[in-house]
């Protein structure tokens, strides 16, 4: 569905991404791991055409991203960015509905469809009853869920999520990943998720991609990628690996040496 071929992104002379190739198929969840500054956010931002490429190309269903309009891209790719604050009294429902921009009904007003997508997304993100609450009165975690609901309400086939679990409590972290997982299974959508939680990635991702200094270090299933060597190489810490007794998936535990 989304084909990324040898893309390079530069900030000035500095290469933030170098020859990154990736393929995202329908129904797939890819977790993007890496230390701070590894180029994860840059990769996500370049995937929806925000950042100009210094080399390589991105294709959506065989069409170059650079030949598509903002509206076309937004109809297919939704982004959950790290949060934004506004000084205006925006209600939760209004915020989520604003994500339906490219689907505008008559005279720029939302249609019944738009409203239904918004309500469904709110319910899925455990936000039913929040409709008239104001964004600037919510906690960081609640706001983050609203931002996720806005992306889900777009009904786009591809979700790009930049640390969506950063402010979430334990229950809502799992909810977030389950939700993304479920969407991908049911409607052949797919997602790329940046996260720092290796265990959540191991539980929910089909594929893990590890980035270091703008280059892909490892790519494959969680079991293939989450090895002590790879984690040490990317994060510079020693870890223990075993299996999650409940799910049987790989589990990573930091050793915390030299305390």
């Amino acid at each position: 569905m989304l084909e990324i071929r040898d893309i390079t992104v530069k900030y000035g002379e500095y290469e933030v991404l170098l020859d990154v190739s990736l393929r995202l198929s329908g129904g797939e969840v890819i977790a993007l791991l890496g230390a701070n500054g590894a180029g994860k956010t840059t990769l996500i931002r370049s995937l929806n055409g925000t950042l100009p490429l210094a080399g390589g190309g991105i294709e959506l269903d065989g069409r170059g991203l650079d030949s598509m309009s903002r509206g076309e891209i937004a109809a297919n790719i939704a982004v959950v960015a790290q949060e934004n604050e506004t000084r205006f009294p925006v209600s939760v429902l209004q915020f989520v509905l604003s994500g339906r921009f490219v689907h505008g009904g008559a005279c720029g007003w939302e249609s019944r469809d738009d409203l239904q997508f918004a309500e469904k997304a709110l319910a899925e993100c455990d936000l039913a009853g929040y409709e008239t609450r104001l964004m600037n009165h919510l906690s960081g975690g609640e706001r983050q869920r609203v931002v996720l609901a806005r992306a889900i309400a777009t009904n786009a086939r591809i979700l790009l999520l930049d640390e969506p679990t950063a402010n979430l409590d334990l229950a809502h972290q799992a909810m977030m990943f389950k939700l993304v997982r479920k969407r991908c299974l049911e409607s052949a959508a797919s997602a790329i998720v940046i996260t720092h939680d290796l265990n959540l990635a191991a539980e929910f991702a089909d594929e893990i991609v590890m980035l270091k200094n703008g280059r892909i270090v490892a790519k494959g299933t969680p079991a293939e990628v989450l090895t002590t060597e790879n984690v040490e190489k990317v994060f510079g810490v020693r870890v223990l690996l075993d299996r999650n007794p409940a799910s049987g998936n790989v589990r990573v535990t930091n050793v915390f040496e030299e305390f």
Partner: protein
Amino acid sequence: MDTRGNGLGFSRKICWAKARRIFETYSLAKASGNLLKTEKFQNSRNRALLIGGGLIALLLIVLAGAAMLGAERLPLFDLNEQQRSILYDIRLPRILLGACVGASLAVAGAGLQSLLRNPLAEPYLLGVSNGAALGTMLAFVFFQSLEVTRPLLAFAGAGLATVAVYRMAKSRAGMNVERLVLSGVIVTTFLSSVIVMLTTLLDAAKLRSFTFWLLGDLSQATRNGVYLSLGAVIVGTVVLTSQARALNLMMVGERDAFDFGVEVGRVRMLVFGASSLVVGAAVAASGSVGYVGLIVPHLVRLTVGSDNRLVVPFSAVAGAIFVVFADTIARTAIAPRELPVGAVTALIGAPMFIYLLRRN
């Protein structure tokens, strides 16, 4: 009259109960309950329509009141020849120009605030009005014979000032409130000093009328001025309202707006262009009337929320009401002498600005 027991009073009571029920359904308190059901959402739209209708009715009342009040009190009907002449030749152009100027400044304020993600953005504070004033002044001094050059140069001045402030306020890290207000102050004071230098070219009589104009003055209203302002404000409001949905995303974040399919550059161009157009026309006709673009959108947001599809058109109507009202005070407070309308709006607006700044 004791209404208890007679039929009239009874039906009146029912009317009251009904009116109260309607009011309760539409009131904000109720709306903050649960909006989940589609019909409730429909209700919030009906409520918006109700407020819009109320605003238009209020505008008509204020216009009628303003037409009657003044140095010479006029009856609403049965005017004699002289009264008719006062109404049609002097008072009506002035009132209508006031309405256009108020609508222009308020709508420009609403648009600029959402675009710049800053509830304190306002044509007067950002230096846009002064840019237009300088343009008008240049036309006044150098191309006096050509009346069309005034609005044209005012528009150009407003546009240049807008772009200058925007470029100054925007840094690599984005744009914050302080930077924007500071850039506005710098552009405003710079343009003011150029204007003051130019006033030395004027003779004493012109200088007095020019000083009045600079403070915001509607007494020079002409029919042509009204037509021009009316045209500009209609075009400007339509353009800004057409971008309202995009502005809803822009006021949260430019990057967000981009992610969700807004052509950010195009929206920015349209909003800057439309606000320069309306501010240019308003300033060319009436000088710099301050704070309208700050107070009016703020009050509108308090009433209908921050959805720009309502805020922008409602601000136009509410701005017209505000300036016509302020100008009626300016005309009548110390009659037969007059205050510049800009002084009245600033008297109300400056404390409000401080309040908003503190709350931020």
